[in-house]
């Protein structure tokens, strides 16, 4: 169980969190590798249907960040 790594469907706002994620990279800050990022123009683009769809496709977690 401890070897298990979740996959987390991640929606990042192009202007905000995606930038923060880029900057985290520039700063070489390390964080877990479980996130699979989908870039969206705005977190408002994330329809509830996407969140359900992510769970339906077996995502262990969903993270929406604006």
């Amino acid at each position, binding site marked *: 169980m401890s070897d298990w790594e979740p996959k987390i469907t991640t929606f990042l706002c192009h202007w905000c969190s995606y930038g923060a994620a880029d900057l985290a990279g520039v700063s070489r800050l390390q964080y877990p590798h479980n996130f699979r990022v989908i870039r969206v123009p705005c977190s408002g683009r994330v329809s*509830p*249907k996407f969140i*359900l*769809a992510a769970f*339906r496709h077996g995502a262990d977690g969903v993270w929406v960040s604006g």
Partner: protein
Amino acid sequence: MIEYTAIIRDTAKKLLKDGKVDVFIGYKKGTVPMMNEPVVISDPEKVDTLHWDSLCGLNLCNYLTKRKDKIGIIANGCNSRNIVTHILENQISREQLYIVGIPCTGVIDHRAVLRAVGNKEVLDVQEQGDKFTVSGNGFSETFDKAKFLRTNCAVCTHRNPVIYDEMVASPVKEQEGVDPFEDVKKIEAMDPEKKWGFFTKMIERCLRCYACRNSCPLCYCPTCFVDESKPQWVGKSIDPTDTMTFHIMRAYHCAGRCTDCGACERVCPVGIPMRQFTKKLNKDALEYFSWEAGLNPDARPPLDVYKPDDYNDFVK
């Protein structure tokens, strides 16, 4: 409430005769006990078809969507709140409507009645004030209406219409001290596994007949998300995950708009209490946005607008 019938007929007749409305929407007495059929009348001579009793449990607002004519309609508390929502959402205009308000004392839960008589066939129901008598082959029993209200009516705090042009009777006293969310709180107290078990079991019998969706006045999209194919959000079989997805999304589309009229449960052929989905949303709307749908003809539902001070405790 059966005494309203005569007044409704008179009003409808007058409205149709005077040309104030082109049609009048109400109920007619059903061909089966405890069932009534929505009906539209355009001939003032046919108003005697109209009927009202404590078993009229659908939502007539459903029949207003995108009509172009002038309509007279009867509306109790919840139906009138849906009319408000309909107006806000451009499905009908206030000017088209003549609303005959019904102070409502609640609708009888026909399933509870059947249960009470051991699921024997009921052949007749007679309503007398706050009591009613059901009879069938070899039995006849009289019950207190108050004890047989549908669960949504039992906790209803908006029994009188919020908009109307005239009332068939003076407003009834609103219920006080009821906790509409007792059942929701019970579920909230469960752990995730129990909750999932509860809801999975609840919808197990679902046939995907969509009666709940179609009886709901909020569901008027030309193409429902379940019918979309590009992308296909939900599989069309009765696979449990697909069925659950349907119920979640159906409920979510009602968020901030549901008036808890109970039509969905009323029509379900297999008796699923799917209000457990929408009630949670109603509770949250009330807690986070101080919102109850359809009370204010000037305010959009909370999820239709963004305000900087919206509830956002869930955001990290």
